[in-house]
């Protein structure tokens, strides 16, 4: 009887969430671009933070001054995570996905031209899917104290960490869309170029996703770390996206970590964190290789299947030399590291932003096939 009531509750919750996630309420960058999709049945969805730490904010650093009496502690360098859990699970480990530079978790959601993003697709394929915002980015917030010190004259303006502002020219070059000076995409370009001003009835909706990158504001090493005793496990020492990813993988009882671009090396870095025991698979989108691994590192990584995926129009050499070195080290030690160049799989014209490309679900299927073939076990079967 008890289990029957539980089933009723689950079904009711799933129905409620399915209604809330119907296409009429889904979020897109341009509302008129929304595409209809089938109902999505969820067992749960929500969000949480991987803790940062508190720092004291003196009243002189609080502005406007009307609030100066509220000196106190402020949380910084936390990591925001949102998740969806499908009702019909595939029995695989959860996916934890982290975006790249100048971007946020929006990278994985509805594409700028209104198609299904990887977040929804992986959920529909039965994966519990967790989207994490890099520490210091988007909903994770950032540490503003340094800027307030400059504002009050307690620090010189030159001490402010630079903020990386990505432009359209930058996007064209780094995301590999084609020739920016003539706004001419590659002939086989898969990115929805109508969202970056190319073609009739185009718009600039993709650029809504490009936000300032505040990574340079992340914490400095403190002198207390110089003796080597300061590790990521020290709650008062250092917080970074890889350390937060390692904690999340531990907390989930095992997870496949996927990082894109700037974050492509973070899953490996998470696996190498002291105390990390939950990384069950590593997916590196557009590189993130390490040719500086120690034998101890290799001993850890040889137990974790690793996939590298690169798209088309990739700058030579391909694979990058660091990837060749790492693959040789990992695989000769008995590990399982795979390199996939999408053109070799018959997928041509994909950009650095493959998760938003017009064939983004085909690319996701390449990843899912690799997971099925390489990552053994699932939650509760560690």
């Amino acid at each position: 009887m008890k289990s029957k009531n539980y089933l009723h509750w689950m079904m009711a919750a799933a129905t409620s969430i399915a209604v809330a996630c119907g296409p009429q309420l889904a979020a897109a960058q341009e509302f008129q671009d929304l595409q209809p999709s089938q109902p999505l049945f969820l067992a749960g969805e929500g969000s949480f933070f991987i803790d940062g730490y508190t720092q004291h904010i003196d009243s002189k650093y609080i502005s406007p001054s009307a609030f100066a009496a509220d000196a106190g502690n402020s949380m910084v360098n936390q990591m925001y995570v949102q998740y969806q859990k499908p009702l019909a699970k595939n029995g695989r480990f959860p996916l934890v996905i982290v975006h790249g530079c100048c971007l946020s978790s929006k990278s994985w959601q509805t594409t700028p031209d209104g198609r299904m993003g990887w977040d929804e697709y992986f959920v529909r394929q039965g994966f519990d899917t967790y989207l994490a915002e890099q520490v210091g980015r988007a909903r994770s917030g950032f540490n503003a104290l340094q800027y307030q010190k400059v504002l009050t004259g307690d620090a010189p303006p030159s001490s402010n960490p630079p903020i990386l502002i990505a432009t359209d020219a930058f996007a064209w070059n780094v995301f590999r869309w084609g020739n920016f000076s003539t706004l001419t995409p590659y002939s086989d370009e898969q990115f929805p170029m109508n969202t970056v001003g190319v073609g009739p009835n185009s718009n600039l909706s993709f650029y809504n996703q490009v936000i300032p990158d505040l990574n340079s504001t992340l914490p400095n090493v403190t002198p207390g770390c110089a003796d080597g005793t300061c590790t990521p496990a020290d709650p008062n020492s250092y917080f970074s996206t890889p350390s937060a990813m390692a904690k999340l993988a531990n907390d989930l009882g095992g997870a496949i970590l996927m990082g894109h671009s700037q974050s492509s090396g973070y899953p490996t870095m998470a696996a190498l964190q002291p105390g990390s025991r939950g990384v069950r698979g590593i997916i590196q989108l557009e590189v993130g290789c390490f040719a500086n691994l120690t034998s101890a590192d290799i001993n850890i990584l040889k137990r974790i299947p690793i996939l590298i995926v690169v798209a088309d129009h990739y700058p030579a050499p391909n694979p990058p030399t660091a990837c060749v070195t790492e693959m040789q080290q990992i695989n000769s030690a008995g590990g399982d590291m795979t390199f996939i160049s999408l053109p070799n799989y018959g997928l041509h014209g994909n950009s650095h932003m493959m998760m938003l490309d017009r064939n983004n679900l085909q690319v996701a299927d390449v990843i899912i096939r690799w997971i099925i073939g390489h990552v053994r076990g699932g939650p509760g079967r560690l």
Partner: protein
Amino acid sequence: MSSTATLAIAAHALFAAKIATFGCSSLDEVARLQHLRPDQRAFQTELMQQMFYGQCVAIEPGKLVIADSQASDPQVLLIDRAIEPPGYLAPAIDFERHQDRDKP
């Protein structure tokens, strides 16, 4: 005093970046960026590209790093392995030993 001599004293030592510099995950990329460095435009383009591919990080002047004695090349520092394993390889000449350990 060379960085090599300093590193011979302790397994970990705190260093500060003297100038804007970088760290990468391979010696090849460090060498490539050093080769390009006289041409600042080419250097910045390559560094930015490698940052985007998760292969390198930019390091601002004054940033403190933990240098590790495991680097095999005396012209290269292995930095921040203690907190961000496997750490990054960086040009040793761009760093100096941080003397004032009590100063935050």
